[in-house]
């Protein structure tokens, strides 16, 4: 696959120069004339009744423009994706549900004054016992976090295929284990931030780091009763999101501040507020059971997931739907019963985080497969290969569609990348372990509903000077979507990259594109862009055909020209044709609207393999990752440096998930409120050798054959590291993260030393 002048090439990111020079304006870098500063007063208690909010002292402080409580808010005071049950501000008489609930807000002329005024707001609470264990929350008689949610059930997702009872009866070996996965924080470096103001015409402008400008506009409308026609939401370049900015974060609060204070307002959360406020990866307890024949053929899988959904629904039903589906992985399993429940608690909130429920499932599935291999005395890779989906197979999960199965190719590549297994020096306290795991990452194919309807829109305009604007409502989170879309437009028009300008993340200028999640933009926005550019190409070719008196079918767009195939002399400059189109009144702005043709399933899917060699020192508990290898079927690599960046970055987040990170709460209070306590991988924590490779089996409906790859690396890498450590020590790992202290405990328990 070598066709393409810019597709598949090492094209530099279009936003890289601004980012390396510090010129890129993130939300907190915006300065507006007359700008004031907002501060939110959060509840210090996970569960408490708000008895009285006394704002008098704050209101009388110099420089304070406005103090806001629930009684000042217009509208419903409720917002939230899926279920709009989250209060903007908890009113007097009502209960808080977690430490990220807000009770009041101030707007003042400086950040320092806003801080002081917020501290001067006196709130009286009646302290109530928080519900902090999903198990307790499920018991009959437990207090209900939401009166409407019986048994504190946020959601129950269930999948049945075949008959597991029969499957386990016919199994000769059955293994079962319960796994515990931690709450993982997205730890984006840019805290939630934004500015908002109302203009002379009464339009509210909210400019903020976010992952879904359309969802934010919807929430502002719901909570504050502002007509949708007067809400303009503009996403700024995002300093990392990973799902943590997918739900509306501070934008409703910011909008209320700007409207009620009648001045431009900036609001930036500090790190502790940020960690407390946004939803994180669901902590889960997963009981998983596998039954197989002596030959290793899997007969049945049964899984039960209990997830801590935190105080609000957020994305829990979707996330846990994927957990339930991902328990099956890329394997043939004839009998399946999987169930995932999200349970409301007063702990920190849970929601979207790269992988979206699949990483938890991958840990349980791949760790239990290794346990099954031990029970069968079979090589774990051989066990997996015997159960791989085969070419032509469709996954068992009804959520997934068709994709060429590339598992054998991945196996070949990963084994080749891994090379011979290293050995520890004699008399060393180091033990060497190895693992190879597989996964079936998913991506949205334009089926995820956007405000009730599926589909993704993009607009493309050719200007009369031959330059091109693309309007795409997705958001640049750092993943590189702006560059990928510019590459696609450049390819389609035969223009250099600098003739393309991509405008993103704006609910006014961009056709509805929905959220930036589910690895969906390259696929969805890419296809929408190809539909729009396809029509524009036709317009340009027909016009050029008339100018040259040649049939449009014989012309091509390349080298900034419209050319007759094979006859260099017969050519017109692209800009000249664009000018003529404009002059003659041709339509030079087209919208493409892409939706999944089949509408039968939620996700497309691909395949991934990860492998690791580790050395574990049984004297110190230290884990060295000697080698980590990732091979992902990318469908088509559109931009190698960016594609591999997704693999490296995802894998290191996975390393953090498996070995380091846990956002601990005790009685609903965070015990890891800063980067000093919640430690994420630094440059010192990465593997000694890290190899990544993409294989390409084109996805039939993907733009240029591409698949969505943004989240893929996270799922597979964590269990690979866990299984390699387990292999090194000959122990079983059932709780994550596993750090030095856990290794030492295992060494003591197993009397390895």
């Amino acid at each position, binding site marked *: 696959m070598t066709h393409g002048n810019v597709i598949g090439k090492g094209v*530099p*990111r279009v*936003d*890289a*120069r*601004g*980012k*390396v*020079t*510090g*010129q*890129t*304006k*993130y939300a*907190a*870098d915006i*300065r507006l004339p007359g700008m004031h500063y907002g501060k939110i007063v959060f509840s210090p208690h996970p569960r408490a009744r708000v008895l009285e909010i006394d704002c008098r002292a704050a209101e009388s402080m110099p420089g304070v423009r406005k103090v806001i409580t629930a009684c000042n808010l217009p509208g419903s005071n409720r917002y939230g994706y899926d279920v709009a049950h989250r209060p903007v501000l908890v009113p007097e008489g009502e209960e808080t549900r977690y430490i990220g609930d807000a009770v009041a807000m101030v707007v003042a002329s400086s950040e320092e004054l806003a801080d002081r005024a917020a501290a001067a707001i006196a709130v009286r609470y009646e302290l109530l016992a928080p519900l902090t264990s999903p198990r307790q929350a499920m018991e009959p008689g437990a207090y209900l976090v939401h009166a409407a949610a019986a048994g504190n059930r946020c959601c129950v997702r269930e999948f049945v295929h075949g008959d597991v009872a029969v499957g386990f009866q016919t199994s000769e070996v059955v293994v079962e284990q319960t796994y515990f996965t931690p709450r993982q924080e*997205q*730890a*984006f*470096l*840019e*805290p939630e931030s934004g500015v908002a103001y109302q203009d002379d015409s009464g339009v509210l402008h909210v400019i903020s780091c976010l992952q879904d400008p359309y969802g934010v506009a919807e929430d502002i409308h719901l909570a504050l009763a502002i007509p949708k026609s007067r809400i303009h939401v503009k996403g700024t*370049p*995002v*300093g*990392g*999101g*990973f799902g943590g900015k997918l739900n509306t974060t501070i934008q409703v609060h910011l909008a209320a501040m700007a409207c009620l204070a009648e001045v431009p307002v900036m609001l*930036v959360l*500090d*790190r502790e507020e940020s960690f407390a406020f946004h939803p994180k990866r669901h902590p889960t307890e997963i009981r998983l059971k596998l039954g197989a024949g002596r030959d290793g053929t899997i007969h049945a899988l049964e899984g039960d997931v209990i997830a801590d959904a935190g105080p609000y629904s957020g994305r829990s039903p979707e996330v846990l739907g994927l957990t339930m589906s991902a328990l099956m992985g890329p394997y043939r399993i004839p009998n399946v019963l999987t169930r995932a429940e999200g349970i409301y608690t007063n702990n920190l909130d849970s929601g979207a985080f790269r992988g979206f429920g699949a990483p938890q499932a991958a840990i349980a599935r791949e760790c239990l497969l290794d346990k099954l291999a031990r029970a069968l005395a079979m090589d774990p890779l051989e066990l997996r290969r015997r159960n791989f989906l085969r070419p032509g197979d469709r996954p068992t999960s009804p959520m997934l569609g068709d994709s060429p199965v590339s598992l054998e190719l991945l196996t070949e590549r990963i084994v080749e990348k891994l090379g011979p297994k290293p050995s520890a020096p004699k008399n060393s306290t180091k033990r060497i372990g190895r693992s190879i795991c597989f996964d079936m990452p998913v991506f949205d194919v334009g089926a995820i509903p956007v405000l009730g309807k599926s589909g993704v829109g993009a607009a493309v305009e050719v200007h009369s000077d031959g330059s091109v604007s693309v309007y795409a409502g997705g958001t640049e*989170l*750092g*993943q*590189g979507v702006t560059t990928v879309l510019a590459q696609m437009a450049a390819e389609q028009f035969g223009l250099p990259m600098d003739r393309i300008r991509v405008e993103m993340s704006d609910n006014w200028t961009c056709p509805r594109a929905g959220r930036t999640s589910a690895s969906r933009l390259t696929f969805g926005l890419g296809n929408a862009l190809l539909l729009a550019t396809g029509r524009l190409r036709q317009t340009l070719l027909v016009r050029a055909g008339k100018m040259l008196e040649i049939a449009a079918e014989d012309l091509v767009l390349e080298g900034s020209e419209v050319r007759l195939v094979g006859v260099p002399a017969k050519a017109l400059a692209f800009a000249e044709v664009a000018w003529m189109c404009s002059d003659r009144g041709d339509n030079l702005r087209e919208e493409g609207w892409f939706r999944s043709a089949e509408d039968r399933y939620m996700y497309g899917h691909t395949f991934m393999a990860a492998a690791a060699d580790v050395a574990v020192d049984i004297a110190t508990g230290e884990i060295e990752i000697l080698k980590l290898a990732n091979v992902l079927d990318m469908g088509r690599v559109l931009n190698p*440096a*960016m594609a*591999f*960046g997704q693999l*490296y*970055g*995802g*894998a*290191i*987040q996975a390393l953090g998930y498996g070995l380091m990170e846990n956002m601990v709460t005790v009685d609903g209070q965070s015990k890891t409120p*800063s*980067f*000093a306590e919640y430690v*994420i*991988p*630094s*440059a*010192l924590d*990465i593997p000694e050798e*890290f190899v990544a490779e993409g294989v390409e089996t084109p996805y039939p409906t993907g733009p240029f054959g591409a698949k969505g790859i943004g989240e893929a690396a996270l799922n597979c890498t964590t269990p690979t590291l866990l299984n390699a450590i387990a292999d090194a020590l000959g122990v079983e790992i059932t709780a994550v993260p596993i750090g030095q202290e856990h290794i030492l405990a295992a060494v003591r328990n197993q009397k390895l030393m």
Partner: protein
Amino acid sequence: MTRQSLVLTVNGKNHALDLAPHRSLLDVLRDELGLTGTKKGCDAGDCGACTVLLDGAPVNACLVLAVQAGGQEITTIEGVSSSDGQLHPLQEAFIEHGAVQCGFCTPGAVLSLIALLRETPRPTRAEIQEALAGNLCRCTGYVQIIDAVQSVADSSK
């Protein structure tokens, strides 16, 4: 509130300022001098996004009081490329090697690594990791950042 007059030398330019003494160098750079290329990620010295150079040495600007920085040469990301817009070779290498994703840690990381390359023009991989350890990056997994530094070191041979 008492205020203190001082001159800050930032990217070779002198700024006469009258400041409350408790203000951090980070806040003064961003809010008084408009140099927003220096990022605030944690305001507690944990993340490194606010790294600037003080007389050539990397520091977290959030942990330095502005009044402590008087008389020293402060370099921010805005002072790294030349006045005609020519990028520093390391900035070029970041672009070429895909070392930039969301970009929020990039200015701080570039400054830490420029300081490294001045002291150690041909660093080992371990030395690069050590120099970068105070700059958290959640997007890249550091691999391409290290590649970028090594390419500059190689080309300076």
